[in-house]
């Protein structure tokens, strides 16, 4: 399955995931402390420079990932224009875009395997209740079964279309859930037959 890691390799791909995640956490905290439009604009420019440092293809992909924020930006912008608190509105919109763009930058420059290592490291305190190998197995199962279930959803839709001119819509949900339950029982048996989940 595709991940959101950028296929365009840039310098930040070579940084350790832990460093990037810690920097992101720090940067996000600082963003929520800054209250003037000038400070927020500086941060926004910094993130834009960071994203542009990966070249135009990388930056264009980064911009595309920000599109879901557009309606919120428009809505908040109009709201604050109407109430007259335009500087507060500018802070809110710029902070939102900067925070999301910075987080996307980390996602785009970190491979899934490195992220997984970071997650395993973060979950170390939980190891008495959640052994790392069980977490890794669960993650692998989900990654494997998302495409399997997508195919099954398509098969259910086709079966529906063969019998009815109406669109199946959300009626695929029930057979899909049933299939997930049956698959889960089979996977459990297969795991037990191979020595258990560790």
């Amino acid at each position, binding site marked *: *399955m*595709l*991940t*959101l890691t950028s296929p365009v390799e840039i310098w930040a791909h070579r940084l350790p995931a832990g460093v990037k995640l810690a920097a992101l956490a720090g940067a*996000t905290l600082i963003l929520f402390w800054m209250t003037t439009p000038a400070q927020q604009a500086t941060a926004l420019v910094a993130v834009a420079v960071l994203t542009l440092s990966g070249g135009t293809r990388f930056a264009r992909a980064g911009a595309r*990932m*920000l599109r*879901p*924020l557009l*309606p*919120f930006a428009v*809505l*908040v912008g109009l*709201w604050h224009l109407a109430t007259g608190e335009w500087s*507060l509105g500018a*802070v*809110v919109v710029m902070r*939102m875009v900067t*925070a*999301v*763009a910075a*987080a*996307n930058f*980390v*996602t*785009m420059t970190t491979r*899934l395997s490195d*992220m*997984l290592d970071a*997650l395993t490291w973060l979950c170390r305190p939980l190891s008495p209740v959640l052994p790392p190998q*069980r977490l890794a*197995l*669960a*993650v692998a*199962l*989900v*990654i494997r079964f*998302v495409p399997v*279930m*997508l195919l099954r*959803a398509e098969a259910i839709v086709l079966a529906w279309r063969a019998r009815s001119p109406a669109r199946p819509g*959300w009626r*695929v*949900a*029930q057979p*899909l*859930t*049933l299939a*997930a*339950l*049956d*698959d*889960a*029982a089979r*996977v*459990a*048996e297969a795991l*037990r037959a191979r020595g*258990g*989940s560790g």
Partner: protein
Amino acid sequence: MEKNLSHIALFAALVAVLGLVPAITLPVGVPITAQSLGIMLCGTVLGARRGALAVLLFLALVALGLPILAGGRGGLGVFASPTVGFLIGFPIAAFVAGLIVERWRAPVGIAALAGAVIGGILVLYVFGVAGMAVMLGKTLPEAVLLATPYLPGDLLKAGLAALATQGIARMRPDALLSRA
């Protein structure tokens, strides 16, 4: 143990797949998909604990960078976006929905409807609305206004979750772990 693990993993995948089912996008931006139906089903079918763990596993994979959130979104950015409250509310919503089906010995369809409405809508909206209020610097009533367009769709999904849970109770009574 293997049974718990495989159910949690497969339902995390189910939530992802339901989020990729074609969606209607509202003018407000967040697409309406069957993803929240998946969250409800985690609770009403798997029960409180397993349901919440399945949703947490799903969120972990979103954070790792898989584009499995409604509308093909994902990565760390979604945890900094205005809709983060809904993400925080997801596992709690599944837990509450599951708890209601486990504890309330009403007919399964009715308990599942109550679980889906109280957990999957009421609890989820409390977190979602609070999140939008904080992230967008709005008051709570203003944030409620932003969330109301989703209410009709979510009520429909609660009904679908109840019907699906009832159907599973009939077809695979042993597999309905929330009532096992």
